[in-house]
């Protein structure tokens, strides 16, 4: 196959693949790297189910070319678990019943993490607008917003403790 050779980092691991120039990052992650956590709901950047971060920047991986991942650091939902522990957002989504079918959940988790990383104490309004690029058809968003607010609270507490220790 004539293709582009790409060296990138996915969830901290060095990864290489060869892909056609027209292939999306989403397809490369799913079909070449074997990470199917990011989902294709639309392929046009409207539903957010394929959300990942590239060098910390939230993107729809269906709108990024696989070749653009060269030299970048990609984080997918599979990278949220650290040292065998669920990320606080993952925990809160389960505790608040913030998922039903779960197809949109990986995208929401990535978007919510991007929000809390840059704004640890968002208002309800800020959560709603930050997540407006992710479609959920099951929950009406109610329990998702509550889970994100609660996760923010826990993360702030943990940060305070960490600072106090220093």
């Amino acid at each position, binding site marked *: 196959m004539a293709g582009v050779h790409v060296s990138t980092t996915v969830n901290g691991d060095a990864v290489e693949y060869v892909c056609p120039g*027209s292939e999306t990052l989403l397809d490369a992650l799913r079909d070449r790297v074997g990470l199917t956590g990011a989902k294709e*709901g639309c392929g*046009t950047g409207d539903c957010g189910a394929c959300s990942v971060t590239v060098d910390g920047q939230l993107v729809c991986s269906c709108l990024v070319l696989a070749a653009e991942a060269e030299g970048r650091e990609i984080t997918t939902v599979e990278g949220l678990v650290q040292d065998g522990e669920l990320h606080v957002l993952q925990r809160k989504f*389960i505790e608040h019943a913030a998922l*039903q*079918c779960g197809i949109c959940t990986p995208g929401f988790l990535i978007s919510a993490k991007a929000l809390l990383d840059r704004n640890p104490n968002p208002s309800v309004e800020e959560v*709603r*607008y930050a*997540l407006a690029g992710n479609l959920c058809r099951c929950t*009406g968003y109610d329990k998702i917003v509550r889970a994100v607010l609660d996760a923010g609270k826990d993360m702030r507490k943990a940060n305070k403790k960490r600072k106090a220790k220093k």
Partner: protein
Amino acid sequence: MAHDKTYTDQDFKLVGTRPLRPDGVDKVTGRARYGADMNAPGQLVGLILRSPHAHAQIKKIDTSKAEKLAGVKAVITSADLPDLTNGDAGMYDTLENCMARERALYDGHAVAAVAAVDAETARAALKLVKVQYKKLKHVTDVDEAMQPGAPIVQPRIKDKETGLSTNVCGMTPFGHGDIEKGFAEADVIVERSYKTEQTHQGYIEPHACLATMGPDGQGELWVTTQGHFTFRNVCSALLGIDLAKLKVTSSEIGGGFGGKTHVWVEPVALALSRKANRPVKMVMTRDEVFRATGPTCSTSMDVKIGATKDGKITAAEATMRYQDGAFPGIWGMLGGLTSFACYDLPNVKSVGIDVLVNRPKVAAYRAPSAPMAAFGVESTLDILAAELKMKPVELRLLNAAQEGTQSSYGPTYGPIGIKPTLEAVKKHPHMRAKLGKNQGRGMACGFWFNIGGQTCSDINIGTDGTVNLTVGTVDVGGARASLSLICAEELGIPYESVKCAIGDTGSLGHNDTTEGSRGTFSSGMATIFAARNAIEELKQRASIMWDIPAEEIDWAEGKALATGVKNSNLGELTLAEIARKSPNTGGPIAGHNEINADGAGVSFASHICDVEVDPETGSTRVIRYTVIQDAGKAIHPDYVEGQFQGGAAQGIGWALNEEYIYGKDGTLQNPGFLDYRVPVCSDLPFIDTEILEIPNPTHPYGVRGVGETSIVPPLAAIGNAVSNAVGVRMNHVPMSPPRILKALKEDQADQKAVSAG
């Protein structure tokens, strides 16, 4: 089935609590596998060529160039799907919908399919398939399609002598009493016409499957579906495969809402695999999902309600026209069945009409047909309340159905929840919340049947006392949590000791599709009986261990108890203790149950909604929303609330924004999430819920279906709120900004005319 008071009156230990869902970790870590997440060695990519025309004769399909392209392993047309349906009209419709035969019946209708080594090759092959069409006249509007002389969608459907076009494929009246007499007794009569546009279920996961057919006639299908047993039945019938030789496994399902109760690409994927002799994976694009799957009907209806001046309804009548897409359905009939079900009416008539148009075959969408009927009826009731100077909630309470009422669709109700939900509306703090400028409050009621159907559950007890529960109904919204709770409750063991899985078609007997809010109702029932069956076996094993007759053993709280004075030294044996000894007392311990789950309980809801309308733009925002619904018994309240909130959100989208827009050429203009706008997080407020529990006397735990009713009231609740906010009565859904703006302008013009006159 008799009301089993032992169980509705018991104090539940686990049922009604909110433990963590068993599939939660899989779904937050990306480990859960959905339709498109499965692969097989040597798999091909399958793609479908679709009609660009609303209606066209297919004169010729030349696949020769596509077949010659390197990497293409199979190309099929309807010639590869011979008619094996033996006169089964419904099955023939399914066959024709999967692949057009003589004619393409709507924009997006499949006409050919290819399987190739990769997506690029498959896409190139599609371009090489040459189809010669002769365009035919089309019709996409329900009212136009009914007129004599309209383009005929399905010439094979015979004239029913209605005097209308043969596109009218069903006309079903319901009701009782004497309508003429009833209207003659009325002091006030309100008569209005309404229209609702077509919407899509909008599940985020597109249809996807992985099909494998071997030369030995055996096949496997991995698929996102609400009913893998039904998919097996249909695929087997269409392709001539023995039922037992087609194993269908349901993947995790990324939303269905009725849209994944029907086959679309699956028979095509199996046919491609059979021809190529390799596994074929097919994943629809969003464009295909919109153009060729799902949607629910667009409608047009006339509603007339009369009442005495003290608010007693004397007669109610509705004529409702539902378009079914290009194939006959029961959607108009369902509208006729549900329209007036909330009320106790002496004289009622409701006619549901089914009409064919050149649009995709309509599929069920959450309480199918009821939201549109409720929009017409509940809007008319609010107008009537205003004319009678009554509060809308009081008018509804005065006329609400109750136990003993003969329903508008026939049967007499048992204990039902419509009055309690209305009483709860009156008491709810939402009703006292202050409203600002351009804000208004509306309410509406809704009804849905719920169904039971064929169901099996298996319980297998491991030697460590943990339990595998296998059910055959697909889990669309958290049912594994509810069914694990039920299983643990019956056996008297911790929730965490139960592992619930959805069995494939080879591991259980037939289970009907998860539809009609039946998942927790019917699999819950089968699980209760399977657990009781296992308990009988556990008692047998305890009798062997103790060497006493089984009749002298009781079962309580997960333990066998020896009864009687002579057994007083024996004490008790826990489930785990009995299980540990099972290899020596007769082998594995299991319980199973196979039933037709009868006794589904009807379900009612009342919704309250506050909106703010921007008179400059016509844009409407929902600012407060409350769902009050009877659940019978909420097994896992978190997921009952989730169903209430999700249905309300879909209804809000339908009411305000979502609509299929067809061009003059009969093609869909907005087949994507950018132009077909479902509610996003910033569009909605928190959705408050109140669960009422009026037990269904025909379920051992009192369960009613909860999944669907919540989408029924929102269209009308929002219409009523808009009317109260800015004084215009919206008779056309969605109440999108242009429609509201137009109504506001017309209203201003009318007022000017009045003041000038």
